[in-house]
């Protein structure tokens, strides 16, 4: 990621944009934080928020015309927040605080002419910035309404505390102003108090308030809103600061006054709530309740819908920075590797984001960079890639024309996970397709999604090329794919192929008459791969209708569906988070789920949720298929192998020609605990068999004094497997397994 990419990504995420009220306020008072504290009845703290930003806060808070109200997001759901009333309450009831401590002296002198509110505010802002400020006026607080006793005096005392010298009894004239300009570094004139005389210096510039007279700044005439007068005072102070520093008077001043903000706040789930605040004599509880109406505007659209984004505590703007930093590390620990590898790449964030921010794009690109730079943690995806290689290996993969034919109009591509989880469903579906369409070939192969998700661009390309060659060798028939991820991968990888989903076909052809009449109701779970495939989603609903299934939808469904936790190989790179995501999705509805991605079904099943794949309704002969547990990793492999062997023998009348490997002859069984640990620890039956074969040959093993169990280890390639077992004649009963990646080089002599 280049720095320019980071900047673009950071600006795309609006979470840190200013709330509407703060942007609309000419002084940018933090009304959101103010309301948050008021809602907690922390009035003194809330007052500090106002006083931090407002000049002469005791006066201004009583006069604020609350321009934030017109921008308040609450206005369409119960009416805007009444900031003005709350500000006044605070001014009257909070513990008074001292004026701000000025910045270190700049040794620059500024004269402020005019004691109206604009002049007072300018003097406040200038003194605060460390200018030696003198205020010349005929009368302090000219034009201000009457305040309760002591209010104005307190703020004027504050001005003096900040170092402002106050010279009253002055009737300023043009010559006096000219003298001041000569004596001081800059002068500001409040034109509302001195309307005629300042006209000699020309109209002030709207942005800078500068005039034709070098060093003279003048307010625009006729401003009668106190908050805008205060903003003018601040603008003048900003200009004088720039002027005395000799920097540009105009650049980067867009955000000084009210401005447009891009912060998005979704009101879809916001209840309308009207204000119960009396205009006068409010109680503390009245203002608390009013402050509670504040929506505390923020975006967080993606975080609200994604357990992965929520898990890492921040939002895409921060994540983009973390990913950029992760890539930039030369020496040290890459803190964001697991975060990058935990994104499900499901595209939900992009769909719900008002600015289309895609964490999937950012994370996938980061993974590719990690792989390219040899910085991808080997353990993250190795197991899934081994599984992909196995699915495409001699034992599982198959590509044939229908039995008795040498051409194919169609090619059924069920996908490697459906064959792993439900081989008999795949067999029945293939039979159904042949019965109704004639010469339908079969291809058992992986679509390459694990290669894509793990950032292995070369592997992804090579595996798609292999797949393409096989497909072409069958005469490039129309492909019928059942798995939504396969559909996506194949459409991207074989742009010239005609690809249809099994579901579209079934919608047209009708379903098998002996399909299971479902007992419902079911909650439809759209897989993330179907997010942008409207046709596919409609096909599914149509088939369920035909089946007579009573269905409901989770809140996040269709285009905004949530991933089951398998997508992007989350459950491989971060198993705990994968299970958490699956459990959250499972909880979204009480009903049994029905889905058309077998990984969704199996992830749900792993959490204990009853879930069906649509094949379970169309092609299953199992009683209560929603209760079918997710097959373990070893069983998935065996299912693929057996399916190929079974189909070769029964459909094509061929004997499988793959040679059984020696380790497969090891007769092994497992305790329940051992089986559970194998699943958790991603250890396959074949890994155990290889380890037991190795000890049979080497004899190197430990024995336990109490249990009599043996313990041995073996490192077939990279991972070292440990197997604790007992011998039962010629077979083995395994009690425990574990593994590590660190290589034991041996005892040092």
């Amino acid at each position, binding site marked *: 990621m280049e720095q320019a990419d980071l900047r673009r990504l950071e600006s795309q995420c609006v979470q840190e944009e200013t709330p509407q009220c703060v942007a609309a306020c000419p002084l940018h008072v933090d009304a959101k934080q103010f309301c948050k504290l008021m809602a907690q009845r922390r009035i003194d703290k809330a007052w500090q928020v106002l006083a931090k930003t407002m000049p002469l806060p005791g006066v201004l808070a009583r006069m604020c015309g609350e321009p934030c109200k017109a921008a308040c997001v609450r206005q369409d759901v119960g009416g805007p927040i009444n900031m003005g009333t709350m500000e006044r309450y605070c001014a009257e009831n909070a513990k008074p605080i001292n004026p701000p401590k000025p910045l270190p002296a700049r040794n620059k002198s500024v004269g402020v002419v005019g004691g109206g509110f604009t002049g007072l505010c300018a003097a406040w802002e200038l003194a605060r910035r460390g200018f030696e400020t003198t205020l010349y006026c005929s009368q302090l607080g000219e034009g201000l309404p009457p305040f309760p006793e002591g209010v104005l005096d307190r703020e004027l005392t504050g001005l003096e505390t900040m170092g402002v010298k106050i010279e009253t009894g002055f009737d300023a004239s043009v010559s006096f102003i000219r003298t001041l300009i000569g004596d001081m570094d800059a002068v500001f004139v409040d034109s509302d108090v001195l309307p005629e005389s300042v006209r000699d210096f020309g109209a002030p510039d709207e942005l800078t308030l500068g005039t034709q007279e070098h060093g003279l700044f003048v307010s625009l005439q006729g401003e009668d809103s106190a908050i805008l007068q205060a903003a003018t005072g601040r603008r003048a102070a900003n200009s004088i600061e720039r002027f005395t520093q000799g920097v540009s008077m105009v650049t980067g001043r867009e955000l000084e006054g009210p401005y447009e903000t891009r912060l998005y706040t979704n009101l879809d789930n916001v209840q309308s709530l009207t204000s119960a605040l009396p205009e006068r004599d409010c109680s503390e509880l009245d203002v608390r309740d009013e402050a509670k109406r504040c929506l505390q505007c923020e975006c967080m659209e993606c975080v609200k819908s994604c357990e992965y984004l929520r898990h890492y505590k921040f939002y895409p703007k921060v994540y983009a920075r973390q990913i950029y930093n992760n890539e930039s590390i030369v020496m*040290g*620990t*890459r*803190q964001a*590797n697991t975060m990058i590898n935990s994104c499900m790449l499901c595209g939900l964030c992009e769909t719900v984001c008002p600015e289309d921010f895609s964490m999937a794009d950012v994370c996938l690109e980061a993974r590719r960079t990690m792989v390219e730079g040899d910085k991808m*943690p*080997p*353990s*993250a995806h190795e197991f899934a890639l081994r599984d992909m290689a196995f699915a495409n290996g001699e034992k599982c993969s198959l590509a044939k024309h229908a039995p008795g034919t040498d051409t194919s109009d169609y090619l059924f591509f069920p996908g490697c996970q459906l064959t792993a989880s439900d081989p008999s469903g795949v067999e029945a579906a293939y039979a159904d397709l042949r019965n109704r369409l004639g010469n339908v070939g079969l291809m058992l192969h992986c679509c390459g999604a694990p290669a894509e998700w793990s950032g292995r661009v070369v592997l992804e390309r090579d595996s798609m090329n292999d797949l393409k060659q096989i497909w072409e060798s069958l005469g490039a028939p129309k492909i019928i794919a059942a798995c939504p991820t396969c559909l996506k991968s194949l459409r991207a990888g074989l742009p010239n192929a005609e690809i249809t989903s099994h579901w579209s076909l079934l919608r047209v052809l009708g379903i098998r008459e002996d399909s299971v009449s479902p007992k419902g109701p079911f909650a439809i779970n759209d897989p993330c791969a179907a997010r942008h495939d409207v046709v596919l989603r409609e096909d599914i609903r149509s088939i369920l209708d035909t089946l007579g299934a009573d269905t409901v939808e989770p809140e996040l469904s269709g285009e905004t569906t949530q991933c089951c936790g398998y997508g992007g190989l989350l459950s491989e790179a971060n198993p705990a988070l994968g299970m958490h995501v699956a459990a959250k999705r499972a909880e979204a509805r009480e009903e049994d789920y029905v889905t058309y991605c077998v990984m969704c079904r199996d992830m749900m099943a792993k959490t204990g949720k009853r879930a069906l794949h649509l094949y379970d309704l169309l092609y299953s002969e199992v009683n209560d298929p929603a209760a079918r547990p997710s097959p373990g990793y070893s069983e998935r492999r065996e299912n693929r192998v057996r399916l190929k062997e079974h189909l070769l023998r029964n459909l094509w009348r061929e004997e499988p020609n793959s040679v059984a490997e020696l380790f497969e002859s090891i007769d092994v069984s497992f305790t329940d605990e051992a089986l559970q640990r194998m699943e958790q*620890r991603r250890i396959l039956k074949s890994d155990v068999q290889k380890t037991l074969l190795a000890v049979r040959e080497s*004899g*190197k*093993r*430990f*024995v*336990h*004094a*109490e*249990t009599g169990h*043996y*313990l041995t*280890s073996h490192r077939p390639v990279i991972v*070292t497997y*440990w197997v604790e077992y007992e011998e039962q004649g010629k077979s083995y009963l395994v009690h*425990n397994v*574990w*593994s*590590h*990646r*660190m*290589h*034991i*080089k*041996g*005892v*040092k002599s």
Partner: protein
Amino acid sequence: MSVIKVPEADSAGWSCANCNVELTMQHVELEYLDSLFNVELPACPQCGIVLIPETLALGKMNQVEHLLEDK
């Protein structure tokens, strides 16, 4: 290279079945991603087979593996 001692390296109850001797703590060289460690681990004093107990493999060793992978 200094020798790392790990409390998890407990071989209680296990002995070498081949040599029929108790295990002793020995200096063992471990390697992962081009990093070498010298760790005191239970091993057979005769044939030299090394035991990595479950708690060590899934605890400290796993942490170090992840740390090295993120380097």
